[in-house]
């Protein structure tokens, strides 16, 4: 479990520009980072989909900006799910790739968005992300029980 607490050194060439030094006094405490990291890793490992979380400003057309981020996310983009939040603009976007969309239909995404926005409205960023990831990974299920 100790390797899951170290979030540095796992970035791809595409995402390394977004990696920040987490030892500094960023907006997230160490406990929050550990929770986020565990939720991200566990939901990705359980479902076989590749969940990534982006927190920061998006361009004015938030949907297009999120889709562009998804296209640039590297790795297997068809199998990846991007959760992009912009706390300044108060917008949450979930983007699924072609393969991921079959496992995780838009209705399941909308349900996750609904529960996430209700938590985000009370200022609970980390809780929203952790619960959204859990809900989406529950909806996507386990890859070995599926035939694809």
């Amino acid at each position, binding site marked *: 479990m100790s390797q899951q607490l170290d979030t540095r050194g796992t970035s791809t060439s595409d995402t390394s520009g977004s990696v920040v030094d987490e030892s500094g006094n960023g907006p997230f405490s*160490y406990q929050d980072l550990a929770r986020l990291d565990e939720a991200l890793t566990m939901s990705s490992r359980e479902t076989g989909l590749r969940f990534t979380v982006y*927190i920061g400003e998006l361009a004015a057309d938030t949907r297009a900006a999120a889709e562009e981020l998804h296209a640039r996310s590297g790795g297997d983009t068809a199998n990846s799910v991007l959760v992009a939040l912009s706390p300044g603009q108060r917008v949450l*976007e979930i983007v699924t790739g072609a393969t991921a969309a079959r496992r995780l239909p838009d209705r399941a995404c909308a349900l996750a*968005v609904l529960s996430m926005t209700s938590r985000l409205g009370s200022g609970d960023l980390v809780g929203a992300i952790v619960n959204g990831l859990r809900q989406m990974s529950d909806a996507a299920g386990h890859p070995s029980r599926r035939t694809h």
Partner: protein
Amino acid sequence: MSVIETVLIYGVIPLVVFLLFAAVTILPGRGQQRTKYRPGQPWTAAPVWWEPHPDTSAGASHGSDHGDDHAAPRLGATAAALAIGQRPHEPHAADAPRRTAAGGARGTW
């Protein structure tokens, strides 16, 4: 029983017990401050993009075939030295990022 003994038994001992329980209750929550965000506030932090750790366990069947269909067709001999999620820079991919999104949802708060 002298006055000092009375004060010690009925004053100091209850006080010590009270302070002990207060310390045990309050102290564990002190170190962890919550993420500072209130809806409506501007977000000044630098953008971050987190991704999951690469699946290194041998039992995960998906992780292995994911690595295979990645490394085999496009990459040359350098592929062996790269991690699963990693790939060498491909200039044409950066020039024309095609649309990869197939679905999703959006929400505001």
